[in-house]
Structure formats: C-alpha cells, structure tokens
C-alpha cells in the first residue's frame, strides 16, 4: 500500500496547507501574526500561557467567524465527495453524484417550503435545515418505492426513479420561488449553497454523520471494488449485492442530506472530486473513499475562501464557485487524459 501513503499523505498535506492559508485570508485584513496568535491563544491549557491575549476584534473575526466557517466548508466538502464516491461505486455510472437519487431536490423542496411558509417564526432557525434533512430522506424512500420492492432493484430503475422524483421536486421548488416575494429571494440563494454565517453547531451536526458514513463506506470498499465487475460477477464472488447496495446508498444519502441541510445545494463536488481522485490514484475504493474525503474538503475549503474573498465585503454563493472552478478544471483533466490515451 505504498500508493495509499503517497496519496493519503499528499492530500492530507494539501488539506493542512489549505487550512493554514485559508484561515489567514479574509476580507478583514488581520495581520498574519495576529491570526496565529489568536489560534495559539485558543489552545486549551497551554494557549493562554504561550501567547498574550490578542486584539478582541481580531479574536472574534478569526476564532468565531473564520474558524467555524473553514471547518464547516471542509466537512461539507468531505461529505459530498464521500457520498459521491459511494454513489458512483454502487451505481457504476460516471454521472452519478450525491444528488442522483433526488436527495438534493427533495431537500431543496423542504427548505423552500420552510422558508416560504414562515415556519421559522414558530420553530426557530433550525426549521430550514431540519425540513431539508427530513424531506431529503423522504425522497430516498420515495425513490426506493418507485424503483420496486427491495432486493430487486436494478440500477437503471433506481436512476430513472431518481430523475423522475428530481423533476417533480424541481418543479415544486420553482413554484415556491415564483410564489415568494422579497427583495432578495432567499430560496434562490439557499439553492446556491453557502457555509457563511453558521456557527459551530452546524459542524457538530455534520461531523458525526461524516465519521459514521466514512467508516461504513471504507468497511464496504472491498465489496464495492467487486461491484465494478458488474453485480452478477460480484454476487458470484460472494458479495451480498443487495445489502451492499442498500447500505452504501442509504449511508451516502444520509450524508448528502446532512450536508445539503446545513449548506444548501453545493453542486459539482460530489461528481468531480471522486473522478479526480480516481484519475490520480486509481479505482480502488479502499483508497478512493478516504482520499476523496480529503480532496473534497480541500476543494470546498478553497471554493469558499474564494467566495468570501473575491468581491471584498460581498459574498458569492458557494455553489456558484464550486461549479465555476470545477467545470473547466474537470474538462481540462478529461482532455489531458484523452490525449495521453491517444498519444
């Protein structure tokens, strides 16, 4: 497993460097020394003895605004990438991503409804993420029901059911948008995704979910490798195909719903990152899944850093950045691979 060390270490290092850089950047220009002074000061126990208390405004900006945001961006990125890897492995479809089975549109419909109905007045700030999460999971159930009795689902039927449900909820979201009247259409912006203005509690929700699903997918990665041969072959090799499918899809959906409910729909990460990692590190899921988590975390972290930096005091929706940067990059990789294959 030398490869594992190279890629795992490489992407791990990339993520670490990314954290260091992204924490240091922001629209409020905090001197580099102060950024790190704040962070060292915050280390429990030895921190306060190590570094004198930094400027209060800087402390707020770095420790209370930037840090939770950086962490949430990483968690969301890792979640989407891992879920994407799971979907691609089970569905054996290069176009599969965390949103293939309609989770995103289901969650969006829930969020749109929560925003429009004024549920927040009664139930508080968590009503939008809560509604998104619940409808996201309900969508999966709906897709499964449409696709047929459990145990006999064909991949094509599943994808088709996902497309149908997606179209339906997409229309529902459009309806909600057309009904809403506001200066700033909150639903539209929710759809474009963001990790801004969120405190630690969002990370606290997503982290355990990510950890559990990551463990499940890594545990199933050997079976998933055999899936690449086709379901029949995998069955001959002793894989419980239906259970693997159910568990991996269910876990990936859960994780997707979690990520979508805290950050909105952030496109492209779940599609591109696993492909990217596969191009570099090969198709072995034992490596692909964890490395995708690292790469997805770095990707969304950088995308979010750009989202908050480029326009100064204004923000760009995160989902816009991930797609704007990701698409050309992915196209370039595809071209390059084709050339090397042909030449």
């Amino acid at each position, binding site marked *: 497993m030398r490869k594992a060390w190279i890629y795992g270490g490489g992407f791990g290092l990339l993520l670490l460097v990314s954290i260091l850089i992204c924490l240091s950047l*922001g*629209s*409020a220009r905090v001197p580099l020394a102060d950024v790190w002074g704040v962070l060292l000061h915050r280390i429990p126990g030895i921190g306060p003895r190590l570094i004198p208390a930094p400027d*209060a*405004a800087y*402390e*707020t*900006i770095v420790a*209370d*605004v*930037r840090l*939770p*945001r950086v962490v949430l961006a990483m968690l969301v990125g890792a979640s989407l990438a891992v879920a994407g890897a799971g979907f691609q492995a089970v569905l054996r479809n290069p176009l599969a991503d965390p949103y293939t089975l309609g989770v995103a549109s289901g969650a969006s419909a829930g969020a749109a409804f929560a925003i*429009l109905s*004024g549920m*927040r*007045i009664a139930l*508080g*700030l968590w009503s939008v993420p809560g509604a998104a999460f619940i409808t996201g999971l309900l969508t999966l159930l709906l897709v499964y029901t449409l696709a047929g009795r459990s145990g006999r689902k064909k991949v094509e039927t599943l994808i088709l059911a996902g497309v149908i449900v997606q179209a339906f909820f997409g229309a529902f979201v459009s309806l909600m948008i*057309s*009904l*809403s*009247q*506001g*200066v*700033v*259409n*909150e639903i*539209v*912006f929710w759809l474009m995704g963001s990790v*801004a*203005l*969120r*405190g*630690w509690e969002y990370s606290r929700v997503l982290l355990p979910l990510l950890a559990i699903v990551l463990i499940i997918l890594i545990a199933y990665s050997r079976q998933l490798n055999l899936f690449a041969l086709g379901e029949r072959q995998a069955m001959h090799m002793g894989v419980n195909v239906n259970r693997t499918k159910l568990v991996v899809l269910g876990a990936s959906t859960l994780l997707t719903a979690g990520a979508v409910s805290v950050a909105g729909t952030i496109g492209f990460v779940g599609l591109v990152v696993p492909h990217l990692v596969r191009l570099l590190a090969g198709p072995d899921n034992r490596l692909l899944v964890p490395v995708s988590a690292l790469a997805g975390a770095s990707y969304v972290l950088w995308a979010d850093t750009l989202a*908050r930096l480029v326009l*100064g*005091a*204004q*923000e*760009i*929706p995160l989902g816009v950045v991930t797609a704007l940067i990701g698409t050309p990059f992915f196209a370039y990789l595809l071209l390059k691979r084709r050339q090397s294959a042909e030449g």
Partner: protein
Amino acid sequence: MEKSVREEAGKNGSWKRRLGALGLALTLALSLAGCGGKSGAGTADEPSVSPAASNAASAAPAGSAAPASTAPSAAPAATDTAAPAATVYPLTVKDATGTDVVLNAEPKRIVTLAPSETETAFAVGAGERVMGVDQFSDYPKEAAQKAKIGDINTNVEAVLALKPDLVLAHNGLQPDVIKKLRELKVTVYAGDPKTLDQVIGHVEIIGKLLNEQVKAAQVADKMKADRDRIVAAVKDAPKKKVYLEFSPGWSVGKGEFLDELLTLAGGTNVAGDQKGWFEINAESIIKSNPQVILYGTDAMTGNTIYDAIMKRPGFSALAAVKSKDIHPVDSSLVTRTGPRLTDGLVEIAKAVHPDKVN
C-alpha cells in the same frame, strides 16, 4: 400564502439583477429598451402642456436630454408653494417611462399595481375610486378588501376586467407589465421615485392626476414636516455607525431608500461603501463594529433576522449586540415608496437616536 412584499424600486432592481445572473437579464434589457424607444417616439407628436397649474415635468420639452425617470418625480417638489387647486382635464403628464400620460377626465376607476401606489392613492383620498390592487397591498386595511390583480407578475386580464381608466404602476418593478398594458390601450402612469424628496413629489403628482390636490398637499406637507423635524433633531448628534439587515444575511448600501433614510436620521451605514443589496461578509461587519443594528420585520419574517443575528458566530462581540442596541423596523415602512416612508424615517431615527427623537 405569504403576506408581505418588501418592494421598492431599487430593491427590486437588485432582485432583478440577481435574477439576471440566472439568465433573465436579456429579457429584461429588451423589455426596458422597448419601453424607452416607444416613449421617445410618442412624445414627438404631442406637445405636453397641462392646462392648470404649471408642472415642470409635463412642460419639459419632449425629447429633453434629462433622464426621464427622474423628471416627473423631482419636478413637483418645486411646485409645493403653489396653492393646490382642482385639476383641469384634459391633463398631460410625463411619467417615469418618459411617456406622456393623457387624462381626459377625472379617473373614476383606478387600479394600482404596487403597494406603494395603493398607499398613495388611499392617502390622497381616492381610496373609494380604487377598483383593484395587487396582492401585496395590505395598507390601509380597506385596500385588502379590493379586487386583486395578481402579484408583481400582474395578471393583465384581471386588470382589463376591472375596466380601469387609470392604472398606477411602479416603473422600477414592472416595466414589462406597463408596456403590455399600454399596448392594450390602458392608461398607465408609472412612477419611479429614487429619493425621499421624489417620493413626496410623487404623492403630489398622484394627487393631481386624481384631482385630490388639497389632500395630497396635506400628505406631502406632513411628510416634509416629519423629514425636517428629524433632520433638525439629529443635526448636532454624533453620527452613529449602523448596520442594516432587512433580509436574512443581506445588507444594503448606497442608492437605496434605507441608506438615505438612515443618513437623514443621523446614522452612518457601515455598508455605505457598497451599492444596492448584497450578501454580507461577516468579517467586514465585525470589523466595522456597528453601534446600532436595525433589522426588518414583517408578517412573514417575524423576528427571524433578530434570532439569526444573535446566534451568528462572532456577532456577539459587536458593540450594538453588547449594548442591546438592536431595533426592529417595519419593512413595509422603509421599502415602499409611498406616503409612509417618512414614518419609516421617524422609526429609524428613534432607534438610532432615542435621546433626540420622540
């Protein structure tokens, strides 16, 4: 469904800008261009002269180089010393689209397409003649009883069914609806005031169109008195740094009514370096450390913006949060270009300088 609309020209402009980003910009631009071109042609053959009190807007030479959108609203402010009189019809007034609107007789069947226009028509005493309003017109209470002609996407058929002899519209909100109605030979007057003074002028113009000049002058005088009272009260007070949030996670910079009202009320918008509505960046807000926060409330949002601000990471360090200087302002007061705009000004001034204004 949802009850409230926070509408007004600039804001909606911003909203549409965002939509434009989603691919509708072209459509909009085309419809606007269509409007402009048409009105330019229309002014050539009709020398616009209003018989009664002189009106700078209508007397402006056709094809004048001045931007059409500001002319009608700005002009009447100059006529406020003239004694209001009964309007003499036929009357020709150039509106914000640059079109000469001709009224042959006093309008008896009025339809309003935006809450600001509804409020203005009622305020000048023409409420009984209003036959239909848009779905978001919730003030005054009687307006809610009127027939509905749809939301911002006006249902043109519903308007026609009411057989209006005058439609009051807001050019910033509905340029394509206005164009469509005119194609259908409906008389439309479209306002588009951009400043508080222009809003006051707009009230006077509507009063003139509806032959309610006396009442309109009273409303305008009250608005001016409120404005002058506030400006005088906060004149010597130190400017306070204020952060505005009237849509969750969004603030507003120069070129919007909120910014103008805040400035008049003796505050400095911490987002004053921005233009229009924009998604905030928490770091910039925290760095600017506002002393007062004003947030919008209406039937739909309730106190959600307040809750969001209090839970937002880092915001607890703001001077305004520490001193609990966080005040709700009724969104419909400060975003509708109608007669209650100065009430919004008073509300803002009370929040920013509670010691100076009561």
